[in-house]
């Protein structure tokens, strides 16, 4: 796999511009085989800094198809699944990025993904709940994310959808995973095809293999 920053210099340039323009306390560190962002992440509310976290952001070889990984480096957040901080900071289910990445730039990753996550950590420290709720740990959390993307309530339906996403092709005459009894093409077919096209199942499998 090639180095994305060599193949897509404009993506690296976008990261640099974002940091210089909006997050001056973070900086790009170029290593021979990787690109990292290090520094103090400001949790902003308008121009006010509500909190700060020391972070390391690493970009996977598959960036920007897959999201950056984030570490909180000062040890302020306990290393615990309950704080969504077992090894890396678990901002979201990774395939959610894959689906939304057309809308998500590095700037929105910082402004929304990281800011939302660290706002949640600061609130949790004060004894409050996560502001947008949290996913269940492990596979169930992945299925919750998939259920949200497909706009279904039932995790069993999401499990059925995941099995379909693992197939090389999706056929419109299959019964829809949602249990409506309708054919896929008349029901959730379009949404499912979009996820299939985005490589959702492969992303999910990669994530499971890493755990």
């Amino acid at each position, binding site marked *: 796999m090639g180095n994305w920053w060599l193949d897509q210099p404009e993506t690296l340039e976008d990261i640099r511009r974002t940091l210089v323009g909006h997050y001056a306390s973070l900086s790009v560190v170029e290593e021979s085989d990787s690109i990292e962002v290090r520094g103090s992440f400001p*949790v*902003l*509310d308008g121009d006010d800094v*509500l*909190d700060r976290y020391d972070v390391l952001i690493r970009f996977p070889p598959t960036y920007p198809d897959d999201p950056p990984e984030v570490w909180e480096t000062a040890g302020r957040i306990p290393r615990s*699944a*309950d704080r*969504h*901080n*077992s090894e890396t900071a*678990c*901002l*979201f*289910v990774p395939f*959610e990025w894959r689906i*939304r990445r057309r*809308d*998500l730039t590095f700037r*929105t990753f910082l*402004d*929304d*993904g990281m*800011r*939302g*996550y660290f*706002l*949640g950590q*600061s*609130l949790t420290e*004060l004894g*409050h709940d*996560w*502001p*947008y*709720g*949290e*996913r*269940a*740990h*492990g*596979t169930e*959390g*992945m299925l*919750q*994310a998939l259920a949200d993307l497909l706009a279904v309530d039932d995790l069993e339906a999401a499990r059925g959808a995941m099995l379909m996403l693992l197939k090389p092709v999706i056929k419109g005459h299959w019964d829809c995973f949602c249990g409506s009894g309708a054919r896929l093409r008349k029901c959730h077919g379009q949404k499912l095809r979009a996820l299939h096209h985005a490589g959702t199942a492969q992303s999910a499998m990669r*994530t*499971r293999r*890493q*755990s």
Partner: protein
Amino acid sequence: MSDDDKYLKDVLAEQKLASDSDEMKALRAERDAVKELLDEKFSDCEFTLRYGGSKAKGTLIREMYDLDLVFYLRSDENGAGQTLEDIFFNVAKALRESYDVREKTSALRLRALGTASDLHIDVVPGRFTNHDRSDCYLYQNGVEKCRLKTNLDTHIAHVRDSGVVDAVCLLKLLRVRRGLSVKQFAWELLAIELLKGKKKAGLADQLDHVLKVIAEADTAIAIEDPANPTGNDLMPLLTASWSELRTMAQNVRSIASGDGWRAVFGELQAEKAARAARLKSAASSVRTPMRPWDKG
């Protein structure tokens, strides 16, 4: 009043337990239940059951609100046992009908039967030394010197009328939050001893003075039991934990001088609430909210 003193006063105000607080209501209800049980079990005995400890001294804080109930028998009363040891264990046996009882050195700690949840009540059995109902003997469980002469009223007055109760409360809070092993009884006597000439000083100065003296003392500073100055040697209580106290004092002074007392005692509840409101407001401005997840 300096900003530091105002902040420390606010910390204390948050630690006050109002008489209509849930904690105090629960303590009163449990005290009544204990009294009823002891009345029933020792109906032939003449005894006094009253508040001792921090409730009587005015040093009760929210983060450590244990209630001492002293159960003192008349000097010639043998109905609950001939010896102090008999009394201690007979009272424990009686309380075990309704509570999970843990035997401490001189007190019986009550926990709820079944759940073993802490009820924050210590019952302290003892016997007055004479008809004055002033001095009292306590049994000391597991200690070589098994009889301790003390005087509850003297102890209460010594702390309550010390003129430095606020500083004693803050130092108690420090002891709780830092998990210090020193006995509260010795800790507050040390604080009062060190603040004898500092009653008029502000709270921040008082705290700093106590910590400075401790930080600079190589060996434990002498304290006396006001109820029995020559009879009870309290020094082992301080000597055993002096190194820990010194390290804590140096550490806290360093934090306070560098970052202020807020860095020692933390944000006030009102400040925390305001910060949480600000964080929640900021969270509502996130355009693409994502839910955190863990691989598990």
